[in-house]
């Protein structure tokens, strides 16, 4: 029986020697491979795929410093000067409830720019608080507040910050690196739900909120605010209410379109789906957004033939169904939204 033998490398052993020509060839191959490797990896250095829009404004370490809420903070009762508002169609963020507030500096007003984003004066603060009712069937059973996001306009530039609420729900801490938090709630159908909610980092904020390299609010476009609200048991236009209270400069509200409510079953699938794409996707998929180079423009006012949807129908659905999209802002699939988009895309020629 032949015993296996070790093959040790020594300068004295009888290992076959390679020719100088072969050796030169090998060295050349090694040189090319290592330099190629060097180029590939260095090219990929320092790039995490997020937008580089500036978002480095100074924020207080505690949310309480802003005095946004009066009394017990967790009751979310807005302090004087904070204006509550609602949107016709809302971004899906893992089924979280949202409270939206705006504070304008005393004596200033917002200005309408057609259907688009309102023009806000310097030192405007936009506040959005994300929470879950413990039992959505009975909201008197309390809520769990997860985060409050601030958008503050200083010297003409917006900056964003995120505050993570503590477990005692007494205050929130500035969080710039992102954070995952377990959240549980009972939904409107009585099902217990658990998710790992993601509080975005400041760079994630900047990625969705950037337009032409600058941070911008996403939701408060005139067309998305142009809805009927109930105030003192009376139906009124939200924008008209803003005007009546002196928050919005006089403008012809009849010239402002209304973004459809994507949850309203009385509207056409096309209108609802386009509204859904506008509020959930168009901040990136627009000519000035983070994904401008994708040639997929999903703003509601973009004519269908210019959106790029026709050639990307299967891809849109596949990305949504796989959870690959949206890239940021949610961690679970929006099943209702996907069903709406599926109906819409199946209805297209």
């Amino acid at each position, binding site marked *: 029986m032949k015993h296996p033998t*070790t093959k040790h*490398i020594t*300068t004295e052993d009888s290992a076959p020697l390679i020719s100088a020509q072969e050796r030169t060839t090998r060295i050349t191959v090694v*040189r090319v491979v290592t330099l190629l490797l060097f180029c590939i990896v260095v090219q990929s*250095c320092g790039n*995490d795929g997020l937008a580089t829009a500036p978002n480095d404004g100074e924020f207080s370490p505690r949310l309480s410093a802003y005095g946004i809420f009066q009394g017990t903070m967790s009751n979310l009762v807005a302090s004087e000067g904070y204006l509550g508002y609602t949107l016709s169609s809302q971004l899906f963020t893992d089924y979280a409830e949202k409270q939206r507030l705006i504070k304008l500096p005393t004596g200033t007003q917002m200005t309408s720019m057609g259907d688009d984003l309102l023009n806000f004066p310097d030192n405007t603060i936009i506040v959005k608080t994300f929470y879950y009712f413990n039992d959505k069937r009975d909201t008197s059973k309390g809520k769990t507040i997860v985060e409050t996001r601030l958008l503050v306009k200083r010297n003409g530039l917006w900056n964003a910050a995120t505050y993570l609420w503590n477990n005692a729900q007494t205050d929130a801490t500035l969080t710039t*690196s992102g954070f995952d938090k377990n959240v549980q709630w009972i939904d409107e*159908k009585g099902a217990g739900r658990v998710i790992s909610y993601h509080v975005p980092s400041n760079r994630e904020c900047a990625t969705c909120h950037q337009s032409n390299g600058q941070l911008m609010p996403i939701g408060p476009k005139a067309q998305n605010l142009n809805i009927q609200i109930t105030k003192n048991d009376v139906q009124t236009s939200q924008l008209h209410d803003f005007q009546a209270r002196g928050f919005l400069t006089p403008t012809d509200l009849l010239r402002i379109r209304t973004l459809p409510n994507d949850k309203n079953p009385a509207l056409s699938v096309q209108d609802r789906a386009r509204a859904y794409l506008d509020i959930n996707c168009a901040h990136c998929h627009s000519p000035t957004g983070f994904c401008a180079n994708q040639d997929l423009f999903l703003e509601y006012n973009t004519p269908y033939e210019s959106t790029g949807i026709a050639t990307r129908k299967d891809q849109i659905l596949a990305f949504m169904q796989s959870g690959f999209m949206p*890239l940021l802002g949610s961690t679970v699939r929006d099943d209702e939204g996907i069903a709406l988009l599926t109906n819409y895309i199946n209805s297209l020629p």
Partner: protein
Amino acid sequence: MKKFIFALLTLALHECLSAQQPSEEIPQRFMYRISFAPEIGYRTLVSTASEREIAESRDANEIAQIGFTTGIAAEYAFTRNWSLSVGFAYANRGYQTKTAIFNWSAPAQQSPSESFVSYRFGYIDIPILLTYRFGHDRHWTFFATGGAVPSVFLVRSKTLFVNEQNTWTSTDNQRGIGYDRFALFLSAEVGAEYTLSDSFALRLGIVGKRAIAASNPNMATQEYLFSGGLNLGFVWRP
């Protein structure tokens, strides 16, 4: 800094492999290796003062997790004892949260009782390692290996595991952004090779890797991944 370190390592390798005189007749042995390493992975956090609470909260809630590295390498022996290897490997390393227990305020149709979250980071590793072999005998050779592992980030997978009535289900969320495309790990390994024949040997080592560059360098709370475990391999000497 990372670019500089990588440039230095790559150019050192480059020069090392090409510096000898072409006319010099030296014995040359190329070896090829395939390996699989089940590893325990975790991370350290380095945070600014403003995010210390965040880091402390994560440290209290996150624990180690099993991952693996598998790949191939080509090794060039300079002498009886010293060799240099370059390879490609896929590494899946990360960490997870402790299991959270849920109490429900009201009867619900379905009520998950516990959950945890797994975070896995996929990398293509390019290990550049120097090996010293010693204690040669007919079958056994011992070795110590160390070097740098430049890595290219592929994807981070966040998976939520939920237990409901003793049935675990999972929801996966994958992201390819938010982490630096390039990472740099230091690697060290000790172990032994068992020669099976003139051309084949088995290899077993204890390996450890630690990132010297944060996976999210632009954040106030930075993550440095590390992992360690057994490295099982098969060596072919043609």
